[in-house]
């Protein structure tokens, strides 16, 4: 036990030293770490997917959708294959992360009320604003960047595994290492990751508000309006504006980027992912009014989630 009342000098702060100063950034970092303690799926699920991807590289068959032996000729072609593998490997990681993050956002402010642990978190000198911001930060910045790094790792791992298979002669020489193209592909992925995070921010805000607000079944109650809404609109007015809106918010960033214009695999040959830098319209996304309107809505939703957590008193 510490010291008893008797050994204490009156007026002395027990710590001996004045209170330790903690900056807002330090507290925020602690809050972010806390999220990964509680929601282990945030890092476990992408890691498991990384393992699966590596397993595929070790035992899977390689199929590019073209006649490898016929088309993959020459240095440029083999470098293109390298970058295409890099981009394709990232897809399952990002898909898993999106699912995990969505469920995380719906759960994070709901479960703390359900198990009443919110009373413990609220007994500490951490504001509701910082707490909720940390959760949004995890969803829109920490996990996406983490998955980006993981995707690079996955590619290095798979390249090493495939390289060994090439050396052992079990698969043909279909790719060549190029640090420059590797970096260019990484750059494309990073830009797309950041733009997607910005585009999907209002969706994250919506899930946070639902998580803070509903009394039960957050997954059901968050999906219900987006399913029932379009049906009701169609029944009542015969129109499908709501449906189009949802579709746009879910896929608009890809339309604006012009992902459909990228042709990496053509009958004339393969192109490295880096060529997408000239094709993808990053400017169109960044100058899109809808992106910035979405961010304003995100701010409003974030504010709403903070207010709800701060002032609801039915716990």
């Amino acid at each position, binding site marked *: 036990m510490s*010291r008893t*009342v008797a050994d204490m000098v*009156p007026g002395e702060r027990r710590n001996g030293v004045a209170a330790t100063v903690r900056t807002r950034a330090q507290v925020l970092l602690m809050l972010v770490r806390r999220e990964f303690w509680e929601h282990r799926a945030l890092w476990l699920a992408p890691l498991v997917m990384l393992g699966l991807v590596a397993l595929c590289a070790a035992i899977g068959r390689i199929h590019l959708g073209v006649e490898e032996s016929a088309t993959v000729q020459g240095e440029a072609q083999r470098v293109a294959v390298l970058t295409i593998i890099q981009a394709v490997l990232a897809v399952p990681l990002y898909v898993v992360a999106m699912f995990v993050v969505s469920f995380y956002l719906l759960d994070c402010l709901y479960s703390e009320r359900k198990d009443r642990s919110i009373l413990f978190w609220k007994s500490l*000198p951490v504001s509701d604003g910082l707490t909720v911001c940390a959760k949004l930060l995890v969803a829109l910045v920490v996990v996406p960047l983490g998955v980006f790094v993981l995707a690079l790792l996955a590619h290095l791992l798979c390249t090493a595994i495939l390289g060994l298979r090439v050396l052992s002669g079990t698969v043909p020489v279909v790719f060549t290492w190029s640090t420059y193209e590797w970096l260019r592909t990484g750059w494309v992925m990073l830009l797309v990751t950041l733009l997607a995070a910005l585009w999907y921010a209002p969706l994250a805000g919506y899930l946070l508000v639902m998580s803070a607000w509903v009394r039960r079944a957050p997954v059901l109650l968050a999906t219900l309006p987006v399913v029932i809404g379009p049906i009701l609109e169609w029944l009542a007015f015969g129109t499908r504006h709501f449906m189009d809106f949802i579709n746009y918010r879910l896929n608009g960033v890809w339309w604006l980027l012009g992902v459909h214009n990228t042709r990496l695999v053509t009958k004339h040959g393969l192109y490295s992912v880096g060529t997408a830098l000239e094709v993808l319209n990053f400017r169109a996304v960044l100058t899109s009014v809808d992106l910035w309107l979405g961010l304003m809505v995100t701010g409003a939703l974030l504010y709403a989630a903070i207010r709800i957590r701060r002032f609801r008193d039915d716990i």
Partner: protein
Amino acid sequence: MTAVIEARGLSKSYGATRALDGVSFSVEPGRIVGLIGPNGAGKTTALKAILGLTSFSGELRVLGLDPCRERDALMREVCFIADVAVLPRWLRVRQALEFVAGVHPRFDRRVAENFLGKTDIRLGSRVRELSKGMVTQLHLALVLAIDARLLVLDEPTLGLDLLYRRSFYDTLLNDYFDKQRTILLTTHQVEEVENLLTDVIFINHGQIALSASVEDLGSRYQQLNLTSEHAAGARALQPFYEREVFGRVAMFFEGRTPAELGTFGELRTPSIADLFVAKMQRTDTR
């Protein structure tokens, strides 16, 4: 010194129910105050208002701060254990220490580790693996290590066995409490905290039924134990509560002198538990 808690006309309604109905009281520093009342009396609502967890009308200052508007600043000086075991079940003991150390400027990790060293709690355990008593010990360890000025406890020992309850209060008194600190607690087990309290506030139907220091209770309230043949004479002095057990009558008086009552029977200072029952079930017409 200024009061730690100063409430004036504190009110709070849930729909048609008035949980707090114009409550006024103050808590001085260095006191251990028991907020005592039956279920639904408004105890928890009062604590929630003090901790800035609920809105209210009326005036309330805690450590000179407005608990609603200045909640974050207040939480640096105030600790609370709300109800039992609200520690999240997924949390590991080590993580609990690390988190509180990471966010609380007045947390001394060594104190908490010291305390935990005397228990059976292992640093690697998750809260869900601990018994209810151990979870309370863990929460107590965290709270003891925070150099706070006000500690609020809402039924901290509910559902614990006698050994844990006893050691909880012993630890609180020996290792935590000093003249710079104030403790405000609610409990149903009045007998257990009886010797701990310096002040009591009885609350019923959202109103204060009694607010006094324990020293004052002795001079304000008298319990008279007497046989039934003397009862009629004593009843003329208007006891506010009386009950009969095994032919003996116990009467409770307010503001009578020993000289007035002593002739009827055995005079004593009522225990807080008895006084609580007497106050809540008063049998006089008032």
